[in-house]
């Protein structure tokens, strides 16, 4: 360190020191005037950005408004449809209407409205319907056994209308099978005896328990009832295929939910075709067909806000 004072320094150095000092002051002023507020503003913006981004990240949506807008438009188009394509809303409504309108005519004729049907369907009416079906099927050589079918005139259920629905579904299904020349099989078990004189084997027709579907766990009312009926019949493969086709048509929606086809070995009388090859076209099919009914009529259940958010679609 030199022992010289500031005054000993050459004037140029002192001028330079003053200039440097002034420059520092200028830099300090410039910082406060030009930069501090900007830095604060930027910091605030960054904070707001991070906060907004975090908020958005929690939603799992991408940070691209254009893409989101396109997605939204796509969803809206998918929901509402276009002039050429049906929207999901309308599709759902028409599909539900179509799939659950199998018994609309009967209900309208007998009860007027679905509410009346559900409230006013009675045991007597069930007994009457069951009796009619039983009589009709007996006329066709088909005997319903309670041990197989699950119902008879004495059956009791808190929901009378559901019992009626089972009877009607069975009636539709058996009629359709008969229309296609399919033979309803009878139970091979001795204990399944039924008929007026209890000498007939019960037909392999079972009215299975109704499945009540709800949208969300905790829903108090089902929005859709599935009325499954199991039936076993024998016939040719071609007839069976025709029958299967007929289960879902403009008027009928009785989708086959289960299928088990078996073919038995030929009898001794089966000699084969002209080339000596064995032809065996008879099959035994056990199927479950379901009819659907909306217990609330045409009303759709409320879209619950508590509904768990569906996962984002691919590409979102």
């Amino acid at each position, binding site marked *: 360190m030199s022992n010289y004072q500031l005054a000993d320094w*050459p004037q140029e150095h002192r001028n330079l020191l003053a200039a440097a000092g002034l420059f520092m002051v200028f830099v300090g002023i410039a910082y406060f005037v030009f930069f501090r507020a900007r830095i604060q503003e930027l910091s605030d913006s960054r904070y707001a950005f991070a906060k907004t981004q975090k908020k958005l990240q929690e939603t799992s949506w991408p*940070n691209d408004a254009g893409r989101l807008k396109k997605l939204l438009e796509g969803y809206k188009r998918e929901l509402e449809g276009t002039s050429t394509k049906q929207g999901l809303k309308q599709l759902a409504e028409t599909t*539900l209407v179509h799939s659950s309108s199998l018994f609309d005519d009967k209900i309208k004729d007998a009860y007027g409205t679905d509410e009346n049907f559900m409230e006013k369907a009675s045991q007597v009416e069930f007994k009457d319907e069951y009796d009619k079906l039983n009589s009709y099927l007996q006329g066709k050589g088909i005997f319903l056994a309670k041990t197989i079918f699950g119902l008879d005139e004495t059956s009791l259920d808190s929901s009378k209308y559901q019992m009626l629905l089972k009877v009607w579904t069975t009636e539709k299904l058996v009629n359709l099978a008969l229309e296609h020349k399919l033979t309803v099989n009878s139970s091979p078990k001795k204990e399944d005896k039924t008929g007026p004189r209890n000498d007939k084997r019960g037909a392999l027709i079972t009215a299975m328990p109704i499945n009540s*579907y*709800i949208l969300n766990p905790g829903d108090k009312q089902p929005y859709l009832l599935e009325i499954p009926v199991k039936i076993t019949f024998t016939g040719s493969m071609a007839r069976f295929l025709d029958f299967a086709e007929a289960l879902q048509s403009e008027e009928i929606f009785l*989708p086959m939910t289960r299928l*088990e086809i*078996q073919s038995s070995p030929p009898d001794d009388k089966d000699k084969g075709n002209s080339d000596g090859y064995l032809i065996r076209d008879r099959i035994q099919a056990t199927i479950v067909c379901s009819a659907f009914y909306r217990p609330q009529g045409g009303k759709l259940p409320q879209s619950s806000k508590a509904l768990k958010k*569906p996962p984002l679609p691919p590409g979102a």
Partner: protein
Amino acid sequence: MQWKNAKTAVGLDIGRYSVKAIRLERQGKSYKIAKANAYIRQTEGLLEDDDAEMYKFTRTWLKDSQLIDLPICLGLPQELTNSQYSSFPPNLTVDNLRYMVKNLTNQFSGLSGENFLDNFCLMSPVKDQPSQVLIGVCRQSLVEDAYSKATSHGLNVQDQTMSGLGLANAFLLLQPREAAADDSLNLLLDLGTETSTLVFLRQNRVLGIASLMFGASTFQKIMATGQNEENSRSTVQYNPDWDDPDAYIHLAVKRLQEEIGGAIQHWLETPETKNLDCSGHRLWLSGRAAAIPGLASHLDSAEWNDVQLLGPKVDDRLSPEYTIALGLAYHGTGTSPLQISLIPPLLQWQQEKIARFPFLAGALALLAFVTLAFAVWFHCHLNTEQEQIDDKLAELKRCNSLVPDLDGALETMGYYQKLLIPIVEYGNRSRTFLHACDVLYQTRSTTENTDDDWWCYYLSDEFSYLDSEAVKKQREKEQPEKAKPKPQPQPFGLFGNPLEESQEEEPAEAFIPVFEIKPLTMLYTAGFLPSHSNRGRYEDIKRIYEELNKAGLFTGVDWFSEMTETTAPANLKGWGKYLADNKSKFGEFYNFVFKLPLSFRPITIPEEKPFVRGRGARNKAKGGKS
């Protein structure tokens, strides 16, 4: 005030008789005399010992000559300084030399309590040759006194050196070829008013400086004695009669020759000059008295071959009186080969600082530039960042504003999709079954009515198979029997009979969330195919399996190993018996069972991922103890 620089300098030679100033200005690589002025103190009415008045007048005179602001190199009287020519070991660094010179000069101060200033100059160093150094030493008080006297009167003194060194520098500037010649020793003699300075110079090296107690005033006195004049004329104005052998000028010349000879002898006795070849001396005359007409030609001696005048040309006239001033000016530029500045420590320190000032200023300018550049960059960066953040934020806000609509749309879509789950799942099953029948038919059709004809005797979906009697029985066998519930007391009706409704009552209605619907994923089929002795059993089965895989409806068709004899369809036995009975007629057949996983599912139920919270929960999930 202008600091010492290489562009211009003023050499100020303050003599007892006159004051001479020369301004030297750089022109390319050489210097030229831009101005040369002098005044005679007596003429200006300045008393000989009144230094203050002299400096005051000099200031005005320099100002009038427009030299006042220029850096001045002041000459120190040679007789007041001490110089020594020394040799040091070769290849020493400057710092080492400085250290050794310092030690040497400390000996000068000896017992004296005075401070001495010293400086040195390494002359024409040659590698591996001893370092020849000229050292200048002067009392600090003297240096500071001379400096303060000049500066207190406003003279911009930037350098001071011995007048002898000024003479040597002038010679190097004026006669560079003669100075570099190695065949002769140059004796530079400046005849001052009271004293003279003799410089021994050879090959650009000052080998010694001596002061002679002989000057122009001695000439005057001798000549005045001869003429019986108390106040003789100035030596310059004096025109001696050289032809008169009795003229006192000859006496004066003889005396000067003796003085020079004595100085040479004394110089030759020093250890440094012992081995020097001293033949061929040349004497150069400068100073006021050198201008005495005929002096140079009559100063010949046996000790030197030639006598010449040394001085710059001022107004096309050789002016030996300006020689010292010229040498000082040359020294003042800092570019002269011989540099021994004897200046106060403060000035030296200041000059060091000034010499480095451009670096400092440059560094600060660079710092300022970098700071400003950084500020500009930072400003732009802030703007850009702000714009980017604003854009991103606006984008995020737009996203955020769309999120509720998107969530709502998805929720609505999810709602409608969920509404359709049972219909879509069950509605598609019929078509899947029919499609499966068609695929099996098409696959088989290629072999129909051939020896390779195969057929299926069983086709079912996974649920039907699992609910089949055979599988149920097998399952019951595998599972231990569940404890049968104890019979509960039945409520009785009014008439003591059990209530029919109670007996028939079905379990409480259980609703099925649509997400719990099990989608159809698999079909099973079983059949027979003829055996061929020339092919392996699984060769044909593999072909069927490949055909089924190709059809597109199934993916990963494979052998259904779980279907064993006990869980096989009821009609397998019948078929087995039939084919065994007719083996002679139809040949041998193999049984095959396939599982047919569906490649397409009409609905995709999102899988619920278990939400694990915390470490304990994770352990629990793994079955560990928390």
